[in-house]
């Protein structure tokens, strides 16, 4: 066979692409992965991972601010934002080189360059790669191509990030110095994580959300607890508020916000745009094939195949939710389907957990109460606040709630919504429960270790059936 022919070509090396390549190699396919910028994609280089390093720093700052609660007194605490961001960059770099090693170990052929789809010849599909730092192109072909080109942050028609006063996530992760004040447009996971980071470091933060609650995808009870926590920390939260215009000069940004029919002007040193993403579908040769898009994202069937046979799309370039773990799961499913493994099931969107790492943390899976009711599901709801949990009180971190929603007739776990200490680490318990299709019975009869935060999960389930012990 031609040395430029592969069983599978993967375009993009993020958490969708590199997982697809490794899984395909494990299953015995010859695979080429083409990455234009950085292995690990946005997630690892400019998303999930470096922001967790930043939030670790702001969490330590919060602890330092409250050491007296634990019997300590410290003085002369110094903070260096450049050291904080450097640590975050080092973490990302360490992991990116790890991905390179994993791909090599699995004998994936990795090419640095920008790939686009060329016209089909017979059954083979061609991919042209413009090699990085060389004035050269390569022509590869395959029967199967996975597009995993990801997405980037969205701008507004009247304002784009300039990396000076108007920040996108990259600038927000590497600020040259701490601003005194900050306006964040958008209160999804990214907006709230930056709000948490900067406010804990002492920046005056204003969050502007167009919908009627922050973290609008979360259950209302959870959003309310997060909002009241941030307000107590002196973060200004404006809901039902839209950005009308922005102007900036050398030392400040002036934002015009329309809220409840009134226009208000906010001055801040910087502004972060965190209003969602757009898919990277340009210049990759989609026009050479019959590939359908919907609102900028590639449309696929439940097995991730696009409207063009043999061309697949996974991760942020396809339809949401736009989460790294969904991209990785799509990657393995897509490859296993290409190979023809048995017992595969399409992804159930109600079984994809979502996490936000602000303080307090938020994690959820499945339907919110509102969505369950809109779907006319007869439900039972359990709620347990962390104030009833011994471990949370011992940690000095007892604000939060675990809410569970069951189908009243079948006992199916419809949704679980959590806010509070380490809930992003707890949610997997409910993910497993959902995947194994437990009912309330198995959850109620599971022994949760004492004393742990996880006991609050148990109590929430018990509460749904009026059997909670500690509340």
């Amino acid at each position, binding site marked *: 066979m031609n040395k430029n022919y592969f069983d599978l070509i993967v375009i993009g090396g993020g958490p969708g692409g590199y997982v697809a390549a490794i899984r395909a190699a494990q299953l015995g396919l010859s695979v080429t992965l083409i990455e234009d910028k950085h292995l690990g994609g946005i997630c690892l280089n400019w998303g999930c991972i470096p922001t967790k390093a930043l939030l670790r720093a702001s969490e330590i700052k919060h602890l330092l601010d409250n050491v007296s609660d634990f019997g300590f007194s410290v003085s002369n605490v110094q903070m260096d934002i450049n050291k904080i961001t450097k640590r975050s960059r080092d973490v990302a770099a360490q992991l990116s080189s790890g991905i390179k090693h994993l791909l090599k170990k699995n004998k994936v052929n990795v090419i640095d360059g920008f790939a686009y789809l060329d016209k089909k010849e017979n059954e083979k599909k061609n991919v042209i790669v413009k090699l990085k730092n060389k004035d050269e192109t390569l022509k590869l072909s395959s029967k199967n191509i996975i597009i995993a080109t990801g997405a980037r942050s969205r701008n507004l028609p009247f304002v784009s990030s300039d990396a000076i006063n108007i920040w996108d996530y990259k600038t927000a992760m590497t600020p040259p110095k701490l601003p005194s004040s900050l306006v964040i447009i958008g209160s999804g996971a990214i907006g709230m994580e930056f709000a948490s980071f900067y406010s804990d470091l002492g920046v005056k933060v204003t969050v502007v959300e167009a919908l009627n609650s922050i973290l609008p995808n979360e259950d209302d009870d959870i959003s309310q607890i997060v909002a009241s926590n941030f307000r107590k920390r002196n973060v200004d939260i404006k809901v039902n508020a839209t950005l009308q215009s922005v102007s900036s000069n050398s030392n400040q940004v002036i934002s015009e916000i329309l809220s409840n029919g009134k226009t208000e002007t906010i001055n801040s040193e910087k502004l972060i745009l965190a209003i969602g993403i757009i898919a990277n579908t340009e210049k990759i040769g989609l026009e050479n094939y019959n590939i359908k898009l919907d609102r900028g994202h590639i449309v696929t069937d439940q097995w991730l195949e696009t409207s063009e046979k043999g061309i697949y799309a996974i991760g942020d370039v396809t339809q949401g939710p736009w989460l790294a773990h969904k991209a990785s799961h799509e990657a393995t499913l897509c490859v296993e389907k290409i190979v023809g493994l*048995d*017992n595969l*099931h399409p992804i159930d969107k109600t079984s994809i957990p979502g996490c936000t790492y602000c303080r307090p943390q938020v994690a959820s899976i499945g339907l919110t109460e509102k969505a369950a009711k809109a779907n006319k599901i007869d439900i039972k709801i359990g709620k347990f606040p962390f104030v009833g949990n011994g471990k949370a009180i011992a940690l000095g971190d007892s604000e939060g709630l675990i809410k569970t929603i069951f189908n009243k*007739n*079948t*006992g*199916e776990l419809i949704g679980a919504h959590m806010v509070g200490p380490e809930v992003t680490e707890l949610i997997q318990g409910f993910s497993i429960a959902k995947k*194994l*299709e*437990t*009912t309330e*019975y*198995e959850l109620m009869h599971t022994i949760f270790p004492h004393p742990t935060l996880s006991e609050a999960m148990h109590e929430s389930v018990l509460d749904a059936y009026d059997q909670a012990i500690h509340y």
Partner: protein
Amino acid sequence: MSVEILMPALSPTMEEGTLSKWLVKEGDKVVSGDLIAEIETDKATMEVESVEDGTIGKLLVLEGEEYIKVNAPIAILLFDGDSLPLKLPSKEKKEDEINVQVVSSNKLKEVDLEVNVEFKNEVPPIIKENKSIKKLKRIFSSPLARRIAKLKNIDLTSVLGSGPNGRILKIDIESLSDNNNLKIENSLNINDNFEIVKNTTMRKTIAERLVKSKNEAPHFYLSLDCNIDKLLEIRASINSKSNNDFKISVNDIIIKTVSASLIKVPKANASWENENTKYFKNTDISVAVAINGGLITPIVRDVQSKGLMSISLEMKNLSTKAKEGKLLPEEYVGGSFSISNLGMFGIKEFSAVINPPQGAILAVGAGEQRPVVIDGQISIATIMTVTLSCDHRVVDGAVGAEFLSAFKEYIENPALMLL
């Protein structure tokens, strides 16, 4: 000590499979969890693990051997220091221990010959089976699937699981029970010229059973015309006294008549079980009911000891449950003889496919007025044509004929059933 490694069931419906590859050879030491063989069914290939530690003493089947029955021994595992047992197990499937009085097939032939000569006095020995014994095969299923199946009265043994190792999931139950949505949900491809609808488990089961019946059971057919004028008269007089509490149908009377005929000719109340022929003492009559997406044969049991009213009520109840998809397995699994009645559609006569492992099925046509010759005179009578399909392995021509003539005698003179 040694243990036999048995052919595993890879899915609830698997009956036999192919040992596609041995992953061990005789003399290999294995520990629990080691892969020992690859098993192939028509659906999948899976690996078999050893559940014990020991040494492979003997491989009892060859690589590539097909049609190995579930639970048949495929290898012998020796524990440390043991040697092979002197007597190797046969490769036949290990039958569940049941209390049977076995009739060897040779003996049965003799009996058959005898009864052909004088069948009135000789009834072959009946095999008794302890009803309470069921095969205890573990069915993998999720708790939620079990809960939903219970709520919807679905028998898990009839569900094909799509999870790992055939584990039954919520989606498998839901795709089964949403009969109304079946067509839409399972439409794989709709175009102007045709529509492809995914076959439901029920469709596949029907197909499998009928193909098995036509392939394995040598069918032959006997037809007879029955004058049902007296029956209609009696029915009208019964129903006129009912005060609308009940309404006996012609079909109810046919069920009763079939039962009476089977009691009179017990050799027609039989099923083929390869090594044995099973003669039923009771008349458990399966009645074909058309339901959305297929058909099912709920059973009116012990008809011989029931009156028309209770047969009628029971049949009505079973048929309602069948249409709602709420029949319990014990209400449709088993039965000794079947009736299929297409009279209500005006079908004059037809021949039905035997419902295996039963030995015969009676196809009932419409009762219609036809000219008949009685004592050299042409007159008009209500005639119903019935066709008996027999499995020749169990029911010979003479037995079938004897049954049909008993049926004709009873249905034309219902009062005889009072005797």
